[in-house]
């Protein structure tokens, strides 16, 4: 019987450096499982969307393949073969997805896998909505470069979205909900015409309070996003490069 697991914000891996890769190679099965959960949180949406677009699969097929991919990652211990000296983890996982989908095309074993593998409770409906309610322009990401860019962008989106969920929880815990609301209003939902002055009027607070609140939230967002990034990088060098990717800094 499938064992459903909820991938939630509080199921994060302990914040030790490079822990996800080290844990994925641990002899302890529970450690490996937690490493997979952490990776799954960051990567399931990019993987799902990538399968939908790159392999032109129906939502049902893509859901099945996404579940199957993460199950196979655990069963076949794919992370043990990852060599940080050769590629980024993100690139390695994308190539693993390609290989997995191609192998699934050859084998008619999906039913079997579906019957045996554990299932993760993933919000495929939400992911599908993000894809534009099924409106897919596969031609727009036809080249290998644009596929890489697409996967990268979705990965950043997923990483930031997770960080924002953590940030929301932190703001509530520190009783700084208003700071988070300002952040939502200005950075997440605001348009280019929204000003600090307008926000100050809307919330009936001084402009300096808006400035200070946004400075705090952005600082915490940055810290949380980088913490999450650290968890899924295998080395200082990879962390540095992925930071540049995520935050748009130039690579050198």
């Amino acid at each position, binding site marked *: 019987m499938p064992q459903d697991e909820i991938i939630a914000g509080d199921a994060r891996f302990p914040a030790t450096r490079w822990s996800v890769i080290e844990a994925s190679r641990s002899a302890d099965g529970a450690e490996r499982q937690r490493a997979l959960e952490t990776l799954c949180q960051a990567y399931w949406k990019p993987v799902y969307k990538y399968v939908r677009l790159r392999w032109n699969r129906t939502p049902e097929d893509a859901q099945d393949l996404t579940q199957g991919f993460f199950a196979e990652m655990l069963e076949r211990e794919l992370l043990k073969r990852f060599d940080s*000296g050769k590629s980024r983890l993100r690139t390695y996982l994308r190539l693993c997805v390609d290989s997995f989908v191609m192998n699934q095309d050859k084998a008619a074993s999906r039913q079997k896998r579906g019957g045996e593998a554990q299932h993760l409770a993933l*919000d495929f409906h*939400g992911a599908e*909505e*993000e894809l534009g309610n099924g409106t897919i322009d596969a031609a727009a990401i036809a080249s290998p470069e644009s596929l890489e860019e697409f996967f990268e*962008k979705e990965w*950043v*989106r997923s990483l*930031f*979205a*997770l960080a*924002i*969920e953590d940030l929301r929880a932190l703001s509530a815990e520190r009783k700084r909900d208003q700071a988070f609301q300002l952040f939502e209003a200005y*950075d*997440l*939902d*605001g348009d280019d015409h929204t000003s600090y002055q307008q926000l100050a009027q809307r919330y009936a607070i001084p402009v300096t309070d808006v400035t*200070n609140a*946004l*400075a705090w939230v*952005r*600082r915490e*967002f*940055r*810290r949380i*996003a*980088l913490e999450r990034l650290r968890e899924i990088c295998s080395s*200082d*060098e990879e*962390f*540095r490069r992925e*930071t*540049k990717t*995520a*935050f*748009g*800094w*130039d690579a*050198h």
Partner: protein
Amino acid sequence: MEHLSDRALARLRNGAEIPDLTGTRYRLLGQVARGGMGIVYAAEDQDLQRRVALKVLEVPGAQGELANRLLREARVLARLEHPGIVPVHDVGTLADGRVFYAMKFVEGQQLDKYIESVTPTPDRLRIFLRICDAVAFAHARGVLHRDLKPANVMVGSFGEVLVMDWGLAKILAAPSDPDAPTRDFSSIDRAKETDGASLVTDHGRVMGTPGYMSPEQARGEVEGLDARSDIFSLGVLLRFLLSHRPSERSSGRTGRALEAICVKACAQGREDRYATVQELAADISRYLDGLAVAAYRESIFERLARFYGRYRFFILLIAAYLLVRVLLVLFYHH
């Protein structure tokens, strides 16, 4: 989970990049440049009411290789108090966890841009001599720059020449400066240099700028680098200064002597290069004074031509005097 639009993604990136100067005496004015490991911002020091440049690490964390490198760069700059080296004012960690240091804000142009407005060769050579002064000073303090190139030299609005970006600097032996700090500073730096050295070789990644790096630096021979590695880079920089002028080509004795200096500075084998920056600078000074340069053996005709060029006024004066004497003798003879 929150769905983020492309616009929100862009805003989050931009917002997260801006350094958080809360709790410091600095007020952000704008971004100036982006370097290998940090971003340089213009800021106002509100206590002293002056403009400074803040070099801020891209990645938060006071630990780690990049933070160490930035701190090390600040300490190297603090050690090198020289008019040709940008002075550092402050170092610390921002509220967002990023390491930074504050330095003098240099208003001017990078050498590669500035040189486009400087045409005469002697003027270019005098700029080069000032770069040599700063590098020779650093060498005397036991510091190699390791990334000398036009983009790392600034020429200020009053003509001051400053060697910038000491992020790849290597600390050699204990400094010869008698005023150097007496605490165990060199040992700290040597320990960090070990980190820097491993940086160069760990990932098969060589640090420096292709085209300006010495062959030994390009091979990653970190331990064996000495002043002659910087001399190679200075030689390439000199060649840039002399050739970065498409409309004019040097020729004759001028070209050959300066070319010989470039060739000697950029020799593949470091034993064939100038042993010190002072030797290189001395050859350039001799050239500017119209003297023979050590790097080039002149023919007798070239020596005469140089002699003529240097003492042209006196030679012409004597020649005129002799001519007048001859004419007078001939006149009276008739």
